[in-house]
């Protein structure tokens, strides 16, 4: 069995002539918390959807839990939990009814069903709200309930698409505690975000920008890499943000510096091409 939970090679998605995901390649090891970072419209959701088997790729290859994203989407779906960017539980159903529905869909055995339901309700801190409609829950509660429903069947890999966007900082913190907890039990977590502080929590990061993967590595690797390239280039690439706290050999740049530098470098490479086209 492959050691990698996710393997992607030159994966591509085009919508008409628009390239939303441009031949990205990366791997996610089992048990890893892999952060997929990028600004809005970069192609994060599109990538995650292809990996979940709900969007057909236009090109390239990918496997999730050893199954091919093109030919075995249904096998993938039995082995993953997916939490989409938009809250996607039933607002007119109560907390318990939502959980019951998904445990029916995942065919949990009767005993397991009770146990998992209690676990989700406890994990999400919803003990006092079992019979509240999902619609009336606060953002943090909704997100934790959605996570709970997506992992009722204890999948080995979970995909979370901007799970903490629009949630207060305390809830975000709690959510990340949950992610660590799951990761500690060997679950592979693939999470997209555009928060820099969340990027720091990930074991490994991929930076996607305009459909292209422009950086890949652990947070530490990425920072060290920037520090060395900037030294070599005489600080030429360092952004304004970085200049305010000039790097000393001991203090590494922040992840934000890394991404700004990468994006600027990418844009500089694109620019001449654009000029030529005009």
């Amino acid at each position, binding site marked *: 069995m492959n050691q990698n939970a996710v393997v992607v090679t030159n994966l591509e998605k085009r919508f008409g002539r628009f390239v939303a995901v441009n031949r990205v390649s990366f791997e996610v090891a089992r048990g890893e918390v892999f952060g997929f970072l990028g600004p809005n419209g970069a192609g994060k959701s599109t990538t995650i*959807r292809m990996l*979940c*088997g*709900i*969007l*057909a790729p236009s090109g390239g290859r990918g496997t999730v839990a050893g199954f091919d994203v093109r030919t075995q*989407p*249904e096998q993938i*779906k*039995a082995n*993953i939990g*997916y939490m*989409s960017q*938009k*809250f*996607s*539980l*039933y*607002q*007119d*159903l109560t907390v318990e*009814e939502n959980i*019951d*529905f*998904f*445990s*029916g*869909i*995942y*065919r949990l055995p009767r005993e397991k069903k009770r146990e998992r339901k209690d676990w989700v309700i406890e994990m999400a801190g919803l003990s006092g709200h079992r019979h509240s409609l999902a619609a009336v829950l606060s953002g943090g509660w909704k997100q934790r309930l959605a996570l709970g*429903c*997506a992992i009722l069947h204890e999948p080995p890999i979970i995909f979370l698409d901007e799970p903490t966007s629009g949630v207060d900082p305390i809830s975000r913190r709690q959510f990340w505690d949950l992610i660590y907890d799951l990761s500690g039990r060997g679950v592979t977590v693939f999470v997209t975000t555009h928060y820099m502080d969340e990027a720091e929590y990930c074991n490994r990061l991929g930076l996607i920008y305009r459909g292209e993967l422009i950086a890949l590595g652990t947070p530490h690797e990425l920072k060290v890499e920037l520090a060395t390239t900037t030294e070599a280039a005489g600080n030429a690439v360092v952004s304004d943000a970085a200049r305010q706290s000039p790097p000393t050999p001991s203090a590494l740049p922040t992840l934000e510096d890394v991404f700004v530098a990468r994006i600027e470098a990418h844009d500089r490479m694109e620019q001449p091409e654009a000029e030529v086209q005009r």
Partner: protein
Amino acid sequence: MNLRRVSAVARKEVLHVVRDYRSLLMALATPAFLLTLFGYALTLDVDDVPMVVWDQSQTARSRELISRFASSHGNGPRYFSIRGYVSRYADVEKAIDRREAMMGLVVPRDFAQRIDAGRDAPVQLIVDGSDSNTATIAIGYADVVTQIYALDLTIEQNQRRGMPPLAIPLDVRPRVWFNEDLESRNFIIPGLIAVIMMVIAAMLTSLTIAREWERGTMEQLISTPVKPGELILGKLVPYFAIGMCDVLIAVLMSEFVFHVPLRGNVALLFGMSAIFLTGALAMGLLVSIVTKSQLLSSQVAVLTTFLPGFLLSGFIFTIANMPQAIRMVTYLISARYFVTILKGIYLKGVGLEILATEALFLIFYAAVMVVLARVKLKKKLT
């Protein structure tokens, strides 16, 4: 196909329906409402035609004729109701213009003299032709009323002359003409049930899948191992139950409100309704699956059921009288078969031995719709 998943989907769908109790009420009240509305409005019978009378003759003879217009025939409804007497043409015209009357009866001055002299005694009927259908029927009524009077006069005169009573070879009873027990309602209601069921069924399911796409819950659903067939079956079950309640309401109403005689087998009636309903519900689902938008889906569902249901099912317009091309199209309308079946069961009391072909078509249609919905429901985003 896993029954636990089907039941999970069905339960969830029931919860949606229960939570949205207004639409549940709508689903149950709509057939009753439509049946009442069309049951009364679509009656092809005309009664209580308002009329004014200008009696220039003012004799026993003329009053006798007028009283025959005013009186009801047998225990049926009245065909005319006299709204007033006038003494000028201008007033007849005014009454018709103001829609106080549809008809003016003018009995000429020499009416009685002519009758007593055994001559022709014409009366004048002025009819508002702006509703030509009602006008034609009203003229027909007036024609019969005057002819019966003429017949009675002839008999009376013969008796007075000591001749033997006229032997009338044909006993033409006007009752048949007059449609005294409102037979057109008996004819319309069974067909109406079919059309209403078709519209309601498609409306019920046309929103379900589109709603999931619009709310984003479909993206979650398609990321689970649930199979399209399980989703479709699970979504059909609760609406099937509601649809059968609608059938029951319609059958009870036609029995107790409209007093349409049900001559055939009740079990067959419900069995056929179940098959028809399945096809109509699946067709609503199909529309929902293809459009992915609640607004578009409900519009398409109503358009594709209401118009063909009314125009091409043979419910009002006889299919045999349609042009060849349109007649071919009616074979594609499932309501056509259901209308035939319902009319057969209701009016003729016939069973499967006669209706087998129609029943097979309904089964075929339902199967095609379910399979199409199953094929079109893709667990993919586009």
